[in-house]
C-alpha cells in the first residue's frame, strides 16, 4: 500500500535473536535490530559478513538457525505457511543481478505477479506496468527483453518489478553495484523519491559509502570477525561517534 504511513518511526520489521548458519557454520549470531516504518535501512559490513544472507532471512527465503523475524509484530518463521505467504505479499525484493526472467519482456516480467496474485483486468495490468516502468525511467521499454537493455536498465527494471505489487516493504540487494557513479546516484535519488512519495520502508544491502550516507537514515553494521552485529543507528552519526573503532574505520573508508 502506497499511502504515506502514520506509523512513521514505529517498528515495521524486527529481527530478534537471529542466528544464521550454513549447517554447523555460524555466519552471524544474536542479531537484534528494528527496521522502522518509512526507514531507508542499510545492512552493511565487510565482504563475506553475511549481508545478503541476512536479507534472504528477512524476506523468508532462508530459515534461521535460531531467532525470528517479526513483521508488524507478527512472527514470521514460527507462523503457519499461510501466514508466511500473506506476510510475503507485503514484500518486494530486488536481487543483486536483477534476476529478471530472461525469456519474458520487461512488461511480462512486471505483469507476471499481477496476473498471479490479483484479479485485475488485462488493461488495468498494462496501466500498472506502464506507470511502474515510467517511474523508473523505462517508459516505452515494455517490449524489450532483459538481454536487450543495459545493466543499469536491468537494475531499474528489477526495481520496478519489486514495486509492482505496491509492497509496504522493499528489499534491495546491492542495487548500485556495478553501475557507473552517475547511474548509481540516479538510482539513489530514485530510491529516495519512491520512499518519500509512496511511504515504503526500504531495506538495502550495500557497502557503497556514498549510497549509505545519501539514502540511509538507519543501519546495522555486521562484523565478519566476531560474527555478530556491532551497532545499529543513523550511519552519519555512527561515522563520527561510534564507540566501535571498526565501524568508524569502515564508514570513513579506512581512514582513522
Amino acid at each position, binding site marked *: 500500500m502506497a499511502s504515506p504511513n502514520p506509523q512513521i518511526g514505529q517498528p515495521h520489521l524486527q529481527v530478534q535473536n537471529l542466528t544464521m548458519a550454513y549447517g554447523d557454520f555460524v555466519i552471524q549470531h544474536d542479531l537484534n535490530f528494528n527496521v522502522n516504518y518509512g526507514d531507508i535501512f542499510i545492512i552493511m559490513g565487510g565482504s563475506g559478513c553475511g549481508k545478503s544472507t541476512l536479507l534472504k532471512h528477512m524476506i523468508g527465503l532462508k530459515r534461521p538457525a535460531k531467532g525470528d523475524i517479526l513483521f508488524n509484530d507478527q512472527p514470521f518463521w514460527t507462523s503457519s505457511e499461510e501466514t508466511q505467504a500473506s506476510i510475503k505479499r507485503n514484500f518486494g525484493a530486488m536481487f543483486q543481478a536483477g534476476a529478471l526472467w530472461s525469456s519474458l519482456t520487461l512488461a511480462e516480467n512486471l505483469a507476471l505477479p499481477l496476473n498471479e496474485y*490479483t484479479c485485475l483486468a488485462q488493461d488495468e495490468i498494462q496501466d500498472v506496468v506502464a*506507470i*511502474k516502468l*515510467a517511474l523508473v525511467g523505462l517508459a*516505452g521499454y*515494455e*517490449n524489450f527483453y532483459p538481454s536487450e537493455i543495459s545493466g543499469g536498465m536491468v537494475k531499474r527494471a528489477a526495481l520496478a518489478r519489486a514495486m509492482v505489487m505496491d509492497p509496504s516493504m522493499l528489499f534491495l540487494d546491492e542495487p548500485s553495484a556495478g553501475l557507473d557513479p552517475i547511474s548509481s546516484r540516479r538510482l539513489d535519488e530514485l530510491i529516495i523519491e519512491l520512499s*518519500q*512519495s*509512496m511511504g515504503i520502508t526500504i531495506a538495502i544491502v550495500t557497502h557503497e559509502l556514498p549510497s549509505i550516507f545519501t539514502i540511509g537514515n538507519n543501519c546495522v553494521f555486521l562484523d565478519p570477525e566476531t560474527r555478530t552485529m556491532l551497532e545499529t543507528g543513523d550511519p552519519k552519526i555512527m561515522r563520527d561517534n561510534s564507540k566501535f573503532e571498526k565501524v568508524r574505520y569502515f564508514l570513513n573508508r579506512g581512514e582513522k
Partner: protein
Amino acid sequence: MKETSQASISCSLEHSCLELSFEGDWLLQKQRPSLTDYLSQCSDPKVSKIQVSASDELNWDTSLVIFVRKLKQHCITQNKPFYSALPDGIAQLITLADAVPPIQAKNENTQPNSALHNIGKKALGIRQSSQEVLTFVGEVTLAFGKLLRGRVSFRKQDFGILIEDVGPKALGIVSLISFLLGVILAYMGAVQLGQFGAQIYIADLVGIGMVREMAALMTGIILAGRTGAAYAAQLGTMQVNEEIDAYRTLGVSPMEFLVLPRMLALMVMVPFLIIYADLVGVISGFVVAMGIFDIGLLEYYNQTLNALTFNHFIVGLIKGCCYGILVALCGCYQGINCGRSASAVGQATTRAIVFSIIAITIAASILTILFQQLGI
C-alpha cells in the same frame, strides 16, 4: 484495524471549474469509479478548468496515481488547466513518471509481414546459419590440424573427465538399450524364421543387424540425447556467463580448449561403446534363442561367427564414428553459438538433440547406400 470504504469521487462544478475530491480506499484490489465517465465530464465545454483534491480519509496506491495521471494527460490534450491539491506523494510520483519521455516502441512487430518478406527472411537466416556451420567446421578442422602437428594444448584432466563422461558413465544406458534391441530383433526374427524351421538363423539376423546397423545407430542416438545435449548446455552456459569471452580475451582459442577435447573424447570412446553394444546385442539374441528354441551356446556362437564378416564389423564402426562426430559437431556448434539468456541455453540443447538425430538419420541413409554400392 482500519475500516475500509468504497473508492469514490465527490464532483462539483462551480464557476466552470470541475472539482473532483477523491475519497475512500483507492486500491488496486478494490472496485474503483470508471475513468471514462470523468474524462467525458472534463471534455464538457462548460468546464474550463479542473481541480483535484483528496479527503482526509483517502487511502491510496498505484491505482489512484494511474487515474490522476490519465485525467491530467486528458486535460493537457484538451488545453484545460489542471490543479492538484492531492497529497505530495501522488504529485511526486506523477512528476517522476513523466520525467523521462517514453522511447519509441520497437517497430519489429508493428509492420505486417508479407509471405514474400517472411520467405526472404527465412532464406537469409538459412544462408547465415549455413555460413556459420561451415565456419565452425572449418575452425574445427584447423584445430585438428594443429592437434596433429602437436601445437594444441588443453587440460589433460578435463579430457580425462570428458572421456569418463562419454564412455564408462554411458555403459548403463547403452547396455539397457542394446539388450532390449537385441531381444526385439531376435523375437521379430523368431516369429518368421520359426515358420520355416530356420530358428538357427536368428543368430545371423541379430548378429548382422546389430553389428552392421543397429548398435551404431542406437549408440549415436543415445549419445545425441546424453552427450550432445550436455555439450550444448555446458558451452551454452559458459557463453551466458561470458566464460568463452574470457578465453578469447586471454588469447586461448575456445575451439582448441573446449570443442576439440569434447570431439576427441567422443571419437575415442564411440568405437568402444559400439563394440560393447554389439556384444550385448548378440548376447541378448542368444538369450531369446535359447529361451524359445532351446538353441545351444556353441551352436549359436558358431552360427554368429559364420554369419559375421570383418566387413560387417568395420562398416558398423565407421558408421558409429561418423555418428559420434556429427553428435559432437551439433552439440558443440549449438553451445558455442548459444544466445546470452537462460532460455537460449534450453533452445541450444533442444536444437543440439534434434539436429544430431536428423544428421544421424541422413548419414545412416547415405552410408548404407554407399556401402551397398561399394559391395562392402
